C-alpha cells in the first residue's frame, strides 16, 4: 500500500527551529506528530505548541519528561507513533526526527523515496557482537546490567554500579524471542512494522525489560523491528554522528556543501543559529550532488585530533605529560664527537644541521642567527631555563625537514637525560675520552632510555667512519612526506 509520509518530531530545548521544521513538513502535505519534552518551560513551549496545533495535518502528543539515556524517550516516541497512526490512516511510513534534524532533500523527494519501497523499513540495526557499533562505553552490557543512576549527573554512582555488577557477575536475563540489536535512534518504519511493535502481544513483557536497558532509544526499535519487518534496509536515513565522548557532532553553515554530499535524506544535529543551513535546506536545496565521504572524513579527523593530538606538540589544549609518547614531533640527529664528519654527511643527506645547540655561550643555530626555528632565542638563559621545551620547540618548528645538531659531551649535562628518554633521538656518540663523556654515557645507557643513539669507541669509528655515519643517518628514516606538518 502506498501512503503518505508521517513524521514524528521529538523536541527538546529551543523550539523555534523545531517549529520551523514542523511547518516545513506540514506545508508539503506530510502528517506530523509533535512531542515537546515536558522539561521545556511552559512560557517557552506554550505559545509554540498552540501555534503548531492549529496547523493542518499536525497533531500534538501528550508531553513526557525525557531524560537522556532513559526509557522516557522511547515512551514519548511510542506515544507519538500511536497518535500519528491512529489519527491519520493514510500514513504509510513513519519517519522519526528530532527538532534539531534538517531534511537535506525536498520533502516530496524524501516522501517519494520511502513510498517507492512500501514494504521496507529504514533503520540502522546491528546484531550485538558482530562489529562494535558504539564508540567506547558499554555495548552488550547495555542489555545485561541494571542502571539505577543517571550517566549525566550521577556519573560516579553510575560507574560504581557498573563496577559492582561486573565484580559480582550480576546479569539480567534476556527475554525470550528477541536478539539484541543496536543502531542510531533515527529511523523510518512502515505502518505495518510500527503497528506490529506497538501492538506486539508480548509488548508488555518486552517494554518491562527495555525499561531497564541503558539508552533504549538505540536498542528498542532496533531489536523489535526484527520481529515484525518484511524487509529491512539497515541504514539510518539521517546523517548523525557522535564524537568519541558520545556527544553528537553539531553542524554549521560552513558545512552546507559537505552535508549535501553525504547522500543522506536528513541530518542531525544542526546548530540552532545555523541560519545558512536552514535557509538553504528548508528553501531549495538544488540537485543532489554525488555522495562522497568528505564530512565523515572531517569528523574522523576531528575525533583523532581530540583523541591523539599532534605528536610533539605542547599547546594550550595539549599537555601530554601522561601520554607516554615521545615528547618531540619526529626523529632528529644528535652527533657527538665528530663535528667535521657530521657536517659533511649532513650536507650530503640534506639534513638541517645546527652547530653546538647546547654550547654554554648560546645556541649555534644553522645559519648562525640570534634566533632559530620558531623564533627561539640563541641566548643561553632561555634554553637552559627549560631545555626540554627548547628541544621540543626546535623539532616542532622544523618538522618539515630532518634536523640534527652537534653536541659536546661536556655540554650534555641537562639535555643528556632528556635525549635518553626521547625515542626520536637518533645519532652517534663517538667516545674520545673527553670530559663529560662518562656522564653522557650513563644517561644514554640508563634503563629508562628509549633513544636510538649509538655509542662507539673512537678506534672503531676512525677505522670505518662512513659505515657508522651511514647507520646513524639511516636511523633518521626518510624525509617526512608532504612536509610532515599538515
Amino acid at each position, binding site marked *: 500500500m502506498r501512503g503518505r509520509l508521517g513524521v514524528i518530531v521529538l523536541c527538546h530545548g529551543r523550539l523555534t527551529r523545531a517549529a520551523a521544521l514542523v511547518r516545513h513538513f506540514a506545508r508539503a502535505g506530510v502528517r506530523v506528530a509533535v512531542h515537546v519534552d515536558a522539561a521545556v518551560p511552559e512560557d517557552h513551549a506554550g505559545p509554540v505548541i498552540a501555534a503548531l496545533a492549529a496547523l493542518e495535518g499536525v497533531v500534538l502528543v501528550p508531553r513526557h519528561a525525557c531524560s537522556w539515556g532513559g526509557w522516557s524517550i522511547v515512551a514519548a516516541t511510542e506515544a507519538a507513533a500511536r497518535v500519528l497512526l491512529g489519527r491519520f490512516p493514510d500514513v504509510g511510513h513513519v519517519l522519526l526526527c528530532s527538532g534539531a534534524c534538517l531534511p537535506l532533500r525536498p520533502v516530496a523527494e524524501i516522501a517519494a523515496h520511502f513510498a517507492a519501497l512500501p514494504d521496507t523499513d529504514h533503520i540502522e540495526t546491528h546484531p550485538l557482537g558482530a562489529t562494535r557499533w558504539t564508540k567506547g562505553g558499554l555495548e552488550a552490557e547495555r542489555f545485561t546490567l541494571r542502571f539505577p543512576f543517571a550517566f*549525566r549527573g550521577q556519573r560516579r554512582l553510575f560507574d560504581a554500579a557498573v563496577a559492582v555488577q561486573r565484580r559480582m557477575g550480576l546479569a539480567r536475563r534476556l527475554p525470550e524471542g528477541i536478539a539484541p540489536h543496536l543502531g542510531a535512534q533515527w529511523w523510518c518504519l512502515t505502518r505495518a512494522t510500527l503497528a506490529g511493535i506497538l501492538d506486539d502481544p508480548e509488548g508488555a513483557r518486552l517494554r518491562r525489560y527495555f525499561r531497564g536497558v541503558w539508552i533504549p532509544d538505540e536498542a528498542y526499535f532496533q531489536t523489535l523491528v526484527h520481529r515484525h519487518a518484511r524487509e529491512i534496509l539497515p541504514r539510518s536515513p539521517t546523517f548523525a554522528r557522535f*564524537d*568519541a*565522548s558520545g*556527544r*553528537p*557532532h*553539531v553542524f*554549521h*553553515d*560552513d558545512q552546507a556543501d559537505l552535508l549535501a554530499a553525504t547522500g543522506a535524506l536528513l541530518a542531525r544535529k544542526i*546548530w*540552532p*543559529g*545555523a541560519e545558512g543551513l536552514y535557509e538553504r535546506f528548508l528553501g531549495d536545496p538544488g540537485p543532489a550532488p554525488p555522495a562522497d565521504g568528505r564530512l565523515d572524513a*572531517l*569528523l574522523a*579527523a*576531528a*575525533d583523532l*585530533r*581530540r*583523541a*591523539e*593530538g*599532534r605528536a610533539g*606538540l*605542547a*599547546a*594550550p*589544549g*595539549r*599537555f*601530554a*605529560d*601522561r*601520554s*607516554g*609518547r615521545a615528547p618531540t614531533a619526529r626523529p632528529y640527529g644528535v652527533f657527538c664527537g665528530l663535528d667535521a664528519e657530521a657536517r659533511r654527511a649532513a650536507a650530503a643527506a640534506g639534513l638541517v644541521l645546527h652547530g653546538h645547540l647546547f654550547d654554554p655561550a648560546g645556541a649555534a643555530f644553522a645559519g648562525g*642567527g*640570534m*634566533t*632559530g*626555528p*620558531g*623564533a*627561539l*632565542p640563541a*641566548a643561553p*638563559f*632561555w634554553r637552559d*631555563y*627549560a631545555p626540554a*621545551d627548547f628541544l621540543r*620547540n626546535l623539532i*616542532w*618548528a622544523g618538522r618539515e625537514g630532518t634536523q640534527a645538531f652537534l653536541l659536546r659531551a661536556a655540554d650534555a649535562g641537562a639535555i643528556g637525560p632528556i635525549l635518553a628518554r626521547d625515542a626520536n633521538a637518533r645519532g652517534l656518540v663517538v667516545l674520545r675520552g673527553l670530559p663529560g663523556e662518562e656522564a653522557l654515557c650513563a644517561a644514554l645507557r640508563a634503563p629508562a632510555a628509549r633513544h636510538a643513539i649509538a655509542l662507539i669507541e673512537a678506534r672503531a669509528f676512525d677505522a670505518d667512519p662512513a659505515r657508522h655515519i651511514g647507520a646513524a643517518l639511516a636511523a633518521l628514516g626518510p624525509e617526512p612526506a608532504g612536509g610532515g*606538518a*599538515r
Partner: protein
Amino acid sequence: MSFATPLFTRLRLRLRRERLLARARRAYRGLSPLADRTGTIAPDAVVLCATIRNEAARLGHFLAHHRRIGIGHFLIIDNASDDGSAKALMAEPDVSVWSTRASYRRAGFGMDWVNGLLHAHARGRWVLTVDADEAFVHPHADTRPIGALTDWLEGQGLRAFGAMLIDLYPRGPVEGAVCPPGADPLTVAPWFDPGNYTIRRNATHGNLWIQGGVRARVFFADAPARAPALNKIPLVRWGRGMVYASSTHMLLPRGLNSVYDRAGGEFASGALLHSKFIAGLAGKAAEELRRREHHAASREYRAYAAGLAAGVDLWCPQSVRYDGWRQLEALGLMSAGNWA
C-alpha cells in the same frame, strides 16, 4: 577536585576562594554605575567583561571586533580614565559602564571588580573577560560566531575555554607603528613569534603556565622565570562560587582550569591577539612606572621603557605575519579539538 589532593591544600584553596568572593562582593559595592543596561541583555547572549583605563584610541576597534564575533553585551569597568573613554562607552547601546577611582593594584589588579561584576550580572551566562588591547580568536572564527562555540562547549559538558596570549609587534621601531584611533592594530603590528613557548603545569591550581613569545625573547631573555604568563582562561560559563584568582590565568574552584588534555589529545582552545606593541606604548610605560599600579613593581614596564627608548626592533627572521585562526592552529598555538 581530585580526592588525591591533600586535605590541607583543598582547605587552603577553599579559604582563598571564600576570601576572593568576599573581596569581590565588597569591590562591587564600590563601583558606581554610569550606564546600566544589563536589563536589555538577551537571555542567551555571550557577554564580555573588561577593565579599562584611558583606552579611547583602542575602544572603537575593540568593540567592533568583539561585536563581529558575536558578543551580545559589554560590561566595562572604567578605572579613572581622563581621556573620555567612559563617555564614549556610555553612548554605546550594547555597553554597560561602571566607574571607580580606587586602586587597580589593591583591587587584585582589577580582578575583584571583575569577579564582583560577574557575580552581580553574569551568573548562568558565558562570559569573555579580556583587556582592551586583546582580541579574542576562536576556532572557526571566520565562519561561526562565539555563540556556536559556547553552545558546543555546553553540549560537551565543558564550563571553561582556554586561550593563549599571542603578543603582536611591528617590523621596525615600535613608536613607528602608529595606529589611528579606532583602527585595527593588526594593520600596523601583525607579527608574532611562532614557536618559542615553554609550558609547565601548576600542580596546585591545575592550570598551565605558558611563557615565551616576543616579550620573553626580547625583554626577559636573561630572566626567563619573570617572563609574563601567556596562559588564559578568558571564556567561562559563570556560576555561583567561581572566582578568577590571578588575572584570567586561573580560576577557582580549580577544576575549571582543566582546559587541556594530559593523555596526548587536544582540547579545543583559542587565542588572544595582544596588540601591546604599537606607538604610544613608551608614554604608557612611563606613566605606569609613575603609577606603580602593575605587577612586580612594574618591572615589565621598566623593561619596555628601556627597550623602547633604545628604538629596539622586535622583529626577527622567524617572525610570522598573522593570517587567521587556521594559521595559529597549524602552528599549534590553538586548536579546534573535536569541534569539527
